């Protein structure tokens, strides 16, 4: 979008003085070069993405175990088992709660901080932005260990604080209480995932025409009115894309919950990714695990298709 796309005209700009054979030779070399450039990517997409996904689909129709025995075709048995299991609906609900609350909070926090770093003439603006991006790269395991430490019932600063306020029992850890555990993992997840929405919103905010705000200000609109009638409508597309992307990533995000609670206490923080992991590496039922991931995938596919279409409509790489 920023630069005109002249590749379609490249051939036309070649000097007309070159004779036909020379042109054909150049075109052949160009095509050979293209194949060399793009081939690894195509091979990657087929071998590392398409094939594993199809293989996963096949596994979900078999009685595959983690080790040994050749998988046998069992039809939809794994799916029937999943839909009739007593835990599926509960873990699906946990997934919904975890995803919806995490995404809503990280979008709001991200937008708020984007507005903050977008202020004109902000002192230390770049330093502030860089600092606020750091949670994006902090290893989940480091965050998990700090969480477990501050939530430690005997010595943790947060746990002992809650105990002192009388909210939980003496020497109790919030992570041992179903009512608290989900709230804790969601808040920690918001801490590590707000930078992405913040960055994307910040870029979108920079793209809004400043004259709009000036005009609004001349008309006597205050900050809230400008925000409501100019900023929010201008961020609509960005918000839709971000929402879909974050929902897909959050609903399938495994590491943080697993390392903080392991899905407990009593399954209160078990969501579908943990259910997949436990089926695969806890009870070694690979076929069953594959079926759960297919269902999770189908739930999210609608979102992904939507995201891709939105990106194609708004992204400069594809025009």
């Amino acid at each position, binding site marked *: 979008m920023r630069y005109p796309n002249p590749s379609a005209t490249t051939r036309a700009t070649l000097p007309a003085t070159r004779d036909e054979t020379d042109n054909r030779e150049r075109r052949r070399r160009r095509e050979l070069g293209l194949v060399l450039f793009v081939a*690894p990517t195509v091979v990657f997409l087929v071998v590392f*993405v398409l094939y594993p996904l199809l293989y*996963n689909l096949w596994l979900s129709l078999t009685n595959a175990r983690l080790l040994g025995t050749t998988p046998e075709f069992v039809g939809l048995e794994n799916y029937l088992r999943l839909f009739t299991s007593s835990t599926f609906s509960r873990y699906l609900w946990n997934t919904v709660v975890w995803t919806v609350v995490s995404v809503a909070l990280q979008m709001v926090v991200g937008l708020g901080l984007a507005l903050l770093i977008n202020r004109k003439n902000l002192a230390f603006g770049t330093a502030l932005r860089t600092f606020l991006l*750091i949670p994006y790269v902090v290893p989940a*395991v480091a965050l998990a260990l700090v969480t477990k430490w501050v939530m430690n019932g005997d010595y943790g600063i947060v746990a*002992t604080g809650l105990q002192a306020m009388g909210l939980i029992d003496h020497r109790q850890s919030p992570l041992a209480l179903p009512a608290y555990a989900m709230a804790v993992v969601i808040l920690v997840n918001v801490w590590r995932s707000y930078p992405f929405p913040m960055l994307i919103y910040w870029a979108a905010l920079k793209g809004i025409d400043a004259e709009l705000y000036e005009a609004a200000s001349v008309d006597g609109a205050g900050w809230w009115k400008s925000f409501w009638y100019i900023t929010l409508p201008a961020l609509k*597309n960005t918000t839709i894309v971000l929402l879909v992307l974050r929902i897909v990533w959050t609903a399938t995000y495994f590491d943080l919950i697993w390392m903080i609670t392991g899905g407990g206490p009593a399954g209160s923080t078990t969501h579908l990714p943990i259910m997949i992991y436990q089926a*695969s590496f806890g009870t070694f039922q*690979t076929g069953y695990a594959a079926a759960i991931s297919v269902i999770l995938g189908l739930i999210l596919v609608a979102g992904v298709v939507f995201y891709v279409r939105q990106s194609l409509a708004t992204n400069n790489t594809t025009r």
Partner: protein
Amino acid sequence: MDTRTRVIGPRLFSRLGFWLLVLAVLAVVSFPLVWMAASSLKPSEELFKTPPSVLPNAPTLTWYVEAFRDSAALRYSLNSLVIATATTLICVVLGTLGAYGLARFEYRGRKPIIVGVLLAYCIPPIMLMTPLYRLISGAGLNSTYVGVIVGHFTITFPFCLWLLISFFEKIPKEIEESASVDGASIFTIFFRIDLPLCMPGILSAGIMVFILSWNEYLLASVLVSSDTMKTLTVGLANYISSTEINWGVVMAIGTATTIPIIVLFTAVQKYFVEGLTAGSVKG
């Protein structure tokens, strides 16, 4: 000087309120990291004191000595370093080629490939875990560097491509065109013009891949069963899932795992921000 002096009061107040808000945000964002680092420097009697002090009164490195005197943590660090470095090199070489081919030319089949890259970018590790485990273990690559590198390559490559495409698109095509008129082949153009111009972007994409691989937990944990081949994140996750956690030691390893990543990220964040905000979502 503003003639409407009555607004100075509220404005001063809003400035003060603004910076108080910034301070509050900084406190919340830095708390987990500061707390981890501070805890790693506290001697035992301070670490287990309630209520705890924020900063260590008598900072000590004993936990670090204890953590890295044990050869396991050193071995994990080495494994992480080898795996992340190899993943980065493979991703950057293949990603640079792919991104160049996808960003600079117009041909049939380009659009489906880009859609494929986007889709691959959306496919989360948990969906690939089961098939990749079977395929990689089936090939006899469980608990090997190659196995984990293949896994990490799978999840970092689409991201790397996406970032690199946005960098290549920023180079004005007129430069290439004039070279093309002068008779340069597309290889010459690639190596002589685009590659040098894109170096900062390529470097930053490489560092982001390194960070992703270094931080990755799920695939590294399922693709490795032998203790000596575990990565730092997997080793650390095992330490904190045991019933008796040696808090001082895990704080020290956690801090040592995190600091290099923050330093690397800070060094390249400028390019990363440019790439991500130019390439991924525009609306």
